[in-house]
């Protein structure tokens, strides 16, 4: 998404990204970014929270007009309500290390099979 925004900017079209993966967007480097510190999935506000969504979209519109230089990050003031998701997402620890390794093996095995099927001559 950030690469796409950069292309539009290079071609004269102003952009603003709404998102929750701050490091990924800022590493890529974009003109304008409205960051909401939420779990990934609802960058424009909590589901069914119309007022919050209005504020986040309104902030994005404001940022379009008000940013005067690139890498303009604006953080909205909203909190998710608990912080449990922060450590839980893609968590790796002793309780699941073995399970994740098995899932990886399984996935590579399926991919190798699919590849072998594709390479088999039609007959």
């Amino acid at each position, binding site marked *: 998404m950030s690469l*796409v925004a950069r292309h539009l900017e290079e071609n004269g079209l102003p952009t603003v990204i709404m998102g929750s993966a701050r490091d990924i967007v800022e*590493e890529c480097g974009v003109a304008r970014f409205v960051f909401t510190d939420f779990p990934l999935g609802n960058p424009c506000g909590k589901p069914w929270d119309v007022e919050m969504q209005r504020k986040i979209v309104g902030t994005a519109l404001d940022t379009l007009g008000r940013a005067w230089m690139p890498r303009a990050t604006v953080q909205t003031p909203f909190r998710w309500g608990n912080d449990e998701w922060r450590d839980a997402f893609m968590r790796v620890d002793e309780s699941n290390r073995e399970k994740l390794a098995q899932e990886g093996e399984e996935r590579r095995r399926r991919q190798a099979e699919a590849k072998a099927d594709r390479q088999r001559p039609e007959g």
Partner: protein
Amino acid sequence: MVTGGFPMNQRRAYRSFVSYIDRSREYYAAHGYAQPYAWATHPDVPFTPLQKPLSECRIGLVTTAGREELEGASQGRTRELYAMPITSTAPRLYTAHLAWDKKATHTDDLDSFLPLNRLAEYAAEGRIASVSPRFYGVPTEYSQGKTIRKDAPQLLKWCQEDRVDAMLLSAL
């Protein structure tokens, strides 16, 4: 002192926002993938100022969600780019293939990631001139090369066809 259920002035040894670059690298390493994903990073950032007041601008909207008609039927086309006319019925989109936080939240409310209704309200109130007649889908692509060579130029072409003045991009 507590504000909104959160203690103020906490101290911590790590940044409070999640680093998805760190997190996903460790996660896929634990799956046995030896080579970590190399994220795009640029020292220079292009910037185009808004050319006229917001109230005179037509605004377009981009999502990373996929289009359900394509994705439900054929798994092989899950990363296809699209431009979809905005109608009174909500578009059927597909988000299950993307790495959002499926334990913490859901994507049942379209406006939480593709705010077509919120943007239409701002157009009705005159804060923006109009919404582009189509919205655009750029499903997240593993290949940065394809994003730059194919997807981004096609999206730019659609934006120009629709005479869009500025774009909101929403990343799931």
